């Protein structure tokens, strides 16, 4: 079937198979920042923004995004906040193999952009909660969390 949706700011038409996941459809369209780690919704390396919300794209049937906005790392490469997040992760040594990193960055981006769902400040606890769905086998999460805290600390918190 044919679906049309907004991918990273561009109107996009894709031919997808009935059971095909958004992860498969995106990778087949050469959107390679979206990584496959489990295809069971447990690792987060396939995280994308679906209408602004982070989701595991392996768990979303591609047909369902008809009419939606999908944002991946490719669509955020020029975004100031994303660049700040990337820079802090890199400088803190939070990127080891890097396989989990685009997905993890998308989760952090959504958190910092929207603030915690329960309101309040983005502290270490909140960051750790936001990253629970992004498994990283390399870093032990210490440096990714430090990097995220550095980004938050450097931002003027709007009252």
């Amino acid at each position, binding site marked *: 079937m044919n679906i049309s949706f907004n991918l990273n700011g561009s109107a996009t038409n894709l031919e997808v198979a009935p059971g095909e996941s958004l992860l498969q459809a995106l990778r087949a369209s050469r959107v390679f920042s979206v990584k*496959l780690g489990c295809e069971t919704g447990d*690792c987060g390396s396939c995280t994308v923004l679906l209408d602004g919300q982070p989701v595991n794209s392996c768990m979303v049937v591609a047909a369902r995004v008809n009419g939606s906005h999908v944002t991946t790392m490719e669509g955020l490469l020029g975004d100031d906040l994303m660049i700040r997040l990337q820079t802090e992760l890199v400088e803190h040594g939070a990127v080891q193999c*890097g396989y989990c990193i685009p997905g993890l960055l998308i989760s952090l981006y959504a958190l910092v952009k929207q603030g915690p769902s329960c309101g309040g400040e983005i502290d270490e606890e909140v960051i750790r909660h936001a990253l629970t769905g992004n498994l990283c086998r*390399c870093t032990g999460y210490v440096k990714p969390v430090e990097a995220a805290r550095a980004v938050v600390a450097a931002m003027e918190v709007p009252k």
Partner: protein
Amino acid sequence: MKVVGKNVTKIDAFKLARGEPVFTDDFTRDGMLYAKVLRSPHPHARILNVDAGAALKLEGVVDVIWHRDVKPIPHTRAGQSYPEPSPYDTLILGPKARFIGDRVAVVVAESVALAEAALDKIVVEYEELPALTDMDEAFTNSEILIHEEPDPQGISEAGKTNIAARIDKEVGDVDAALKTCDLVVTRDYHLPRVQASHIEPHISIAWVDEDQRLIVRTSTQVPFHLRRMLAQILEIPEARIRVIKPRVGGGFGDKQELVVEDLVGVLALRTGRPVRLEFTREEELIAARYRHPQRITMTTGVMKDGTIVANRMYVLADTGAYGSHALTVQGNTGQKVLPMYPAANIHFKMDCVYTNNPISGAFRGYGAPQGCFALECHIDEVARELGMDRLELRLKNHIKLGDTDPLSAKLGEGKEGLVRVVNSTGLDKAIELGCEAIGWGHEKEPSATHLKRGLGMALAMQGSGIAGVDWGGATVKLNDDGSVNLAVGATDIGQGSDTVLAQMCAEELGIPYDKVIILSSDTDLTPFDVGAYASSTTYISGGAVVKAAAEVRGQLAGVLGPHWECEPDAIVFADGMATGPAGKSMTMGEVALFALYQAMIQPMATASHMSNDSPPPFAAQFAEVEVDTETGQVHVRRFVSAVDCGTPIHPIMVEGQIEGAVAQGLGYALFEEVLLDRTGRVLNPNFLDYKIASSLDVPDMVTILVETDEPTGPYGAKAAGEVPIDGPAPAIVNAICDAVGVRMYRIPATAERVWRGLKEETR
């Protein structure tokens, strides 16, 4: 030092953070086919016939192969130096399935979905055989033979028993010594089956190019071994094979083995089309490799004053259906661990058996996490029985500067090894700083009445490469603008070796780090290296880089000396400049132009490096836990690692290695376990049921680098990648015992197990 020891920007970090297409699968070729493996539903069965007729009738299914279609060439998939210390007990596709999940047939089709659909249509005729899934039973039962093939090379007791490998080595006389001891303590420790769980699955793409060469783009730790193994089993010359390793999404030992590359190779040659095979997470947890499950019996004899007189370790291990790494992982369990307390009498014995379980193999730490768990828990037990402080017992007995390690000489890597002398150690300092950081000796108030707090510690040591076996090459070539190409066989799998090697190259040539362009692990383009395992890259491959860069520097001094009318030795290379006497100087770019266009030479060198030494890095690790006495739940509140890895070349990357290892070790201690039923079927082959640490599971970590200067290492460096995974499990389990008095002889120490322990305690 201008570059070495500095936290330069990791060389590949930005492209990874930007999600650039740099991994094996971020790539397609026209006409690519997709392979899928049909796996055995039986733990032990002969494969009598495979009927693929219906599968091949499906539109888009191109080929189905099984054992009749491939030549039976016994080999090992271990991915080690040749000749491998692992038995040649494996075929690409064999006539017998030896575990639930063993390869039976392979499909290639125009899409993954089609290949999966074809799997359902294949009809296999099996003759089921009795199976052995219990390692004790496999050890004694010689009626059921898992490997009875006529000429299996290198199996310890081929055709007679199920023993894949054994070791029995002794220093001194343990039996006699035990009789003289004031106290002898014996205990059994049980180690689970755990999986590396790199987030990028095993994946390979192979195709035949216009020169009829087989190109294999693959997520591997051992590109050069892989080329050799593929040549052997596909029966084509190495010259016709090129292995390319792009970025790798984690390996941890699991990608040392040849797990998928032979299949894409065979199928690309057969079909003439590009073939891709990627494991699902389920396949990772069934058909990749595990840390060997073991039962370890420790017997230690001590005197009243705490002197350890004799130490005996007996290991029974389950290699599963095939014996890759059976000898050497288990050898390491003794060799990397027992030297921590160099008693006069040490006995190490192990039996590693075949079973009809999925396959064990290499996983970060390579046998040492098992041995370290047993030894470091045992030291606490000995201290308790002796009525001596557990820290004091360790301080009294642990290995010191200048000590030799006679066991290493006896064990080696599958052959007689070399005597190891400790030339550098920061262990005492690590213990001191670690104790301070965790607050050793200070009782802590639990946060609620049903909670109990405890502290635990463990000491660990490892090696830096395999002495006398591991080696690597590096090529350095100077360009017009003073930049250099550095080509290394060393394999960056995310640990950051490209960065560390570029740092060493820049330091040696006195140029900025960003002037180094690195290329790693392409068998057509870079020198040889054994690959990324045994904590060898910084120490061994780094040695090659330093030599090659120094040689290029010598060549430059050789052309500048006559030009400046001075001794070449008088020229200094630093800060991107060459400086001679009498105010002579040039930028590196000018030097390059002079060499290339006046002297007309290409400044370039290739060097090789091996070491007869494998200096141990040391770690002292400490856990503070809180145990819920009502539920048995263990919460690790703080974890301190003080690690001596020589001189850290890139401190925050070393910290990253340690923190990642602690998270993996935490899982080993508390929640990771691949569960099998009685037939060897994996019960939890997904990340929901096989849980690895998430951001909420990891404790507050303190990481301390204890700097020492290793005389045999490049810039004083030793290894860092493996040693920090050894201590977390025993430190945490010792802390549990400190908190509630329950000794967990079996890990993971799940809430249920701890709770049961508490029940028995109060009975």
